[in-house]
């Protein structure tokens, strides 16, 4: 019954009242003319109500004359009448059209740019370059040459190895892959030395090419040559080779830090005030104001988008500024606590500097207490390969 109903809706139908003495014959004659009715209700001997299509209603005239019945329209349904109503109420139609254009118009702009995958390169720098190429909030979406932008970005930003600009609704999603900076490797055909990249005590040195100049248990300084690429033999001309070696050395990392027993901390008193704004584009409209009477406070700005689905966003934000009153409080910790804290902190900061391929062999943290603070000195010993290749420059030539 659904499809006939839809058809009826688009053709339009009428609810009609028929009055007369020969209602049955009115129906019979109409039916014989090919007119159909539905929902026929007998109200009384001389009256019936029924639904009829617009087309059928127009054909009724002849039958009415013959049977002496009279009809009057009670109600009108369907799309043709809706259009008629709309014609009469022009502003409604115009409003609807404006609404549609606004929705379609607004959704054909880029309203936010999201950058995924940036680690070393700052997001701000990527954003700046993107906006120079046209990907920025407010850009018209339909004529963005995405492929060109991607290419130009790769040319502009050296640090990127791959970029993908995707337009998802009103958001531009920019996915980037950074170029991993290659360690400087001396080409195989160029002569080079192996030098130390940090201080250490050599544990093992195995050269596959070149002559080692240091022995096991030698102490080396940063920059010192470990394996030379210049091979000197008596009775032979000097040869230059591409030196390569595994040079394991014991190295150490040292750091210190201090934790005072007393420190000043900001603590919220629990009292707060708030201001509310609506942000349209870049304009802020204040809705709720208040006087901030606190001497010191934390200001927290929360911004929520009014419409924020994964693919559709509008530049309408509600901004709530919260002012939390704060008071200074002195935090006192015991000497024991300070000691633990200091040693943890020192160890953590040293660990950050140790390369991942280094093997830790010894960890030592000394904590002492002087005056009002705990001092920690941490020393971590590791074994790592400290050799780096460095090109030999022969007589000024490379």
């Amino acid at each position, binding site marked *: 019954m659904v499809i006939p109903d839809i058809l009826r809706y688009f053709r339009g139908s009428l609810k009609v009242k028929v009055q007369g003495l020969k*209602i*049955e014959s009115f*129906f*019979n004659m109409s*039916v*014989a003319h*090919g007119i*159909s*009715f*539905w*929902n*026929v*209700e*007998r109200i009384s*001997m001389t009256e*019936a109500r*029924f639904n009829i299509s617009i087309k059928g209603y127009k054909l009724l005239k002849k039958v009415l004359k013959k049977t002496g019945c009279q009809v009057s329209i009670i109600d009108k349904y369907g799309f043709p009448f809706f259009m008629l109503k709309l014609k009469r109420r022009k502003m409604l139609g115009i409003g609807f059209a404006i609404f549609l254009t606004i929705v379609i118009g607004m959704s054909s702009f880029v309203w936010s740019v999201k950058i995924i995958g940036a680690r070393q390169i700052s997001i701000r720098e990527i954003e700046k370059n993107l906006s120079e190429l046209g990907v920025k909030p407010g850009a018209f979406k339909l004529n963005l040459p995405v492929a060109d932008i991607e290419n130009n970005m790769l040319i502009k930003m050296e640090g990127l190895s791959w970029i993908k600009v995707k337009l998802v609704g009103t958001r531009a999603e920019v996915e980037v892959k950074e170029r991993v900076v290659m360690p400087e490797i001396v080409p195989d055909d160029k002569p080079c030395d192996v030098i130390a990249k940090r201080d250490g005590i050599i544990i093992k040195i195995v050269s596959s090419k070149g002559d080692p100049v240091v022995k096991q248990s030698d102490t080396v300084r940063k920059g010192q040559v470990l394996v030379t690429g210049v091979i000197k033999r008596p009775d032979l001309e000097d040869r230059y080779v591409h030196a390569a070696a595994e040079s394991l050395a014991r190295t150490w990392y040292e750091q210190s830090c201090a934790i005072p027993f007393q420190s000043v901390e900001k603590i919220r008193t629990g009292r707060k005030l708030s201001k509310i704004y609506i942000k349209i584009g870049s304009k802020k409209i204040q809705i709720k104001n208040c006087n901030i009477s606190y001497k010191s406070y934390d200001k927290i700005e929360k911004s929520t988008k009014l419409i924020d689905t994964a693919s559709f966003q509008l530049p309408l934000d509600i901004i709530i500024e919260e002012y939390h009153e704060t008071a200074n409080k002195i935090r006192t910790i015991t000497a024991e606590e300070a000691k633990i804290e200091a040693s943890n902190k020192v160890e953590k900061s040293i660990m950050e500097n140790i390369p991942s391929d280094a093997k830790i062999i010894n960890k030592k943290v000394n904590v002492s207490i002087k005056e009002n603070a705990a001092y920690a000195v941490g020393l971590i010993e590791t074994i790592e390969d400290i050799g780096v290749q460095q090109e030999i420059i022969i007589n000024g030539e490379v």
Partner: protein
Amino acid sequence: MGVENFKERFAEIAELPKDIVMDSPKVTIIGNIQLSIENHRGLIEYGRDKIRVNTSIGIYKITGQDLIIKSISIEEIVMTGRIDNIDISC
């Protein structure tokens, strides 16, 4: 009746629907709430509790309560309401 008899037998032998061959009405009833008559020859009487429909074989009289003609066209009459009684008078 000879012609009618022949038509009936022909329909039976040829396994054709009798309502088409014999031009007779086909009545479908759903429970006691809906009744449709195909192949009718017009309304004779229509009231809330009584509907009479003319057909090729005679008059169908349907009595019931709150009878409404759901739709009427040249092929079919569909009526709904509470049907109490169907009377066929040939």
